């Protein structure tokens, strides 16, 4: 089983990202589970969302403490939240930032990767909505899911032009982060 923890702020679509990831994983032929963990705040405050992917139905109901993968939608969270907490050494942490991975000193042996999701979103979607873009980056960085499974999930959730633009953006992030990885 693989566990993913998504960090964001209220209103940035972290919960939607977790859900889309679960739908995409199911589209990809796996069992999945997504759930949020947030306070009562509405916008702005730090929130976390979790996705589990496995080849068997998932029964575990706790939060994710030793994630295989971490997605950080908002880099300002690094000052207030220990996003790398518990990440497996073999894990990957994907941060939405235009800085290079080496510029982050996260106390972890996991691999840190960055993608400027905000820019990709602004360029292609026209608004700084980064959740779907980062899912594309996730697919590119980890190979856990086929990008077109994420596209199907996104288009199912957001029909029409919005779905198309988000899909285009997530594929761009997929290619960008794979480019860096080569």
């Amino acid at each position: 089983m693989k566990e993913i923890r998504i960090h964001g702020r209220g209103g940035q679509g972290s919960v939607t990202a977790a859900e889309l990831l679960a739908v995409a994983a199911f589209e990809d032929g796996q069992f999945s589970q997504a759930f949020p963990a947030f306070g009562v705040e509405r916008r702005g405050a730090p929130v976390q969302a979790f996705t589990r992917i496995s080849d068997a139905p998932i029964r575990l109901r706790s939060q994710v403490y030793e994630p295989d993968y971490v997605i950080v939608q908002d880099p300002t969270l690094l000052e207030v939240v220990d996003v790398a907490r518990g990440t497996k050494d073999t894990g990957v942490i994907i941060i939405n930032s235009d800085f290079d991975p080496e510029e982050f000193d996260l106390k972890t042996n996991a691999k840190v990767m960055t993608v400027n999701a905000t820019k990709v979103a602004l360029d292609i979607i026209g608004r700084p909505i980064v959740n779907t873009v980062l899912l594309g980056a996730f697919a590119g960085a980890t190979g856990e899911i086929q990008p077109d499974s994420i596209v199907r999930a996104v288009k199912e959730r957001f029909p029409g032009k919005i779905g198309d633009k988000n899909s285009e953006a997530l594929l761009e992030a997929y290619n960008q982060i794979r480019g860096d990885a080569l």
Partner: protein
Amino acid sequence: MSIRLGGVCEPGSTRVNKTGGWRTFRPVYDYDKCIKCKLCELLCPDMSVLEWENGYFQFDYDFCKGCGICANECPKNAISMVLEEK
């Protein structure tokens, strides 16, 4: 720290929670245009407009959430919202 009877809390203690990280845009004064009308201080939902020198004000970026109400309401357009570099 241990729970006091009934869980009573100290006044004004949310100040330990700096909310400045919430914003994507930050307000900036243009003091040439500012006529010290104090409207920004009155309206700020996060008490992030602080008295500064000789009647002017400055923003408390520890707490300002970048809502932009001050800029929108300023009678002299003396406040502009600038994208925050992250």
